[in-house]
């Protein structure tokens, strides 16, 4: 009988073991989205800078070749957007419908053209899509805004210095030596408290 008891214990532990493995199999989750491109190849692409379009470049493309995607929020999109643009807010880029749309565009060989308030926002979305394998994505280098209550979209001068920094600093420095001579020293204000006259000692002879 002792032998039997032992086998019982063994079979129980074996069943448990199998259960654990089964649970492991069932709960195993494949990551839903993965980066297809590694960082080094992304960097190569970044250096090339062939994915940045201006409004002029967009005009040259045929309408069937591309789809414009507005990555701003839905609220902003409703206020005003580029003609024929589709709204995929950067916040729900992983939603089922947007992934389906992106996959469809990729399968059709159409160019995905992203734009946002600022090229930086579009760039973030582009970096994500490119690394996820949507290598047909491009950025529209524009700035959006409103003028006279109508939607405006203008080319953005990317990384253009506002002034010549070195020159500007030089002139700012030379201003110093010129004007130091002119500079007046602030007068020191001295508040003098009038001396109290001493009372003549009272009394006495």
């Amino acid at each position, binding site marked *: 009988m002792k032998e*039997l008891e032992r086998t019982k214990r063994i079979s129980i532990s074996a069943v448990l073991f199998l259960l654990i493995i089964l649970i492991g199999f069932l709960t195993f989750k494949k990551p839903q989205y993965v980066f297809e491109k590694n960082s*080094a190849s992304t960097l190569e692409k970044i250096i090339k800078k062939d994915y940045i379009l201006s409004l002029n470049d967009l005009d040259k493309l045929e309408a069937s070749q591309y789809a414009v995607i507005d990555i701003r929020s839905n609220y902003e999109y409703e206020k005003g957007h580029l003609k024929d643009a589709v709204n995929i807010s950067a916040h729900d880029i992983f939603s089922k419908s947007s992934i389906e749309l992106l996959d469809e565009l990729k399968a059709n060989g159409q160019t995905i053209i992203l734009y946002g308030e600022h090229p930086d926002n579009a760039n973030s979305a582009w*970096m994500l899509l490119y690394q996820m394998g949507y290598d047909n994505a491009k950025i529209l280098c524009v700035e959006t805004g409103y003028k006279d209550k109508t939607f405006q979209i203008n080319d953005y001068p990317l990384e253009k210095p*506002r002034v010549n*920094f070195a020159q500007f*600093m030089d002139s700012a420095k030379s201003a*110093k030596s010129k004007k*130091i001579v002119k500079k007046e020293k602030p007068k020191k204000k001295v508040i003098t408290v009038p001396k109290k006259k001493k009372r003549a000692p009272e009394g006495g002879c």
Partner: protein
Amino acid sequence: MSKSYKSKKILVKRRYQILAAILFLLALGLVLLPKYKENEGIDPELFVKNALSTERYISTDVLADRLINQDPTVLLIDTRSEDEFNEFSLPDAVNIPVKDFFNENLNPFLDQNVFDVILFSNDNFYANEAWMLGNRLGYTNLYILKGGLNEWFSTIIDPKYPDETMPREAFELYSFRKAAGMYFGVGEAESKTEEKPVQKKKVVTVPKKKKRAPEGGC
């Protein structure tokens, strides 16, 4: 008795064999599991979450304040080209153009957790690219100077004098920026239209009390 015991023993043995076979099959199954691509760096979901957050931006005023206070944890990285860097850059900045991001000599500046690395370029764009690359690989402590050098020049080096109707804070910010500008090498002088209020030092002198002459007496 002994016979039934023997048959039971055989049964147990068979059970062992079946169990072993199942386990063996399962082990084989593990080998045959479909390969899936593992992410290099963080998940795309986290990548987007980080990218959408504005935590990475540092304003020019905050940076100026930290530089003036000699904060030893600040490490400035200029992501523009070498020529631009040689022409002008912020004090003590290190030049790492975006293309040299994985340069083995320069990458250790970015991939560390000692300094707060503040990336900047003329605008945000190049700095943002470098930040994105770092973000994917899970680098911590990467920040971006908001507005880049353009913003630096329009706020710290050449601030605009606030309108008279602006709140007091605007004037305080202006005087901070003006003072910060001087620290970074701008002359004290203002342009002609702007007049800098000269703060007069008030000196209050307390007159010494004369000793009273002894009272009374003839």
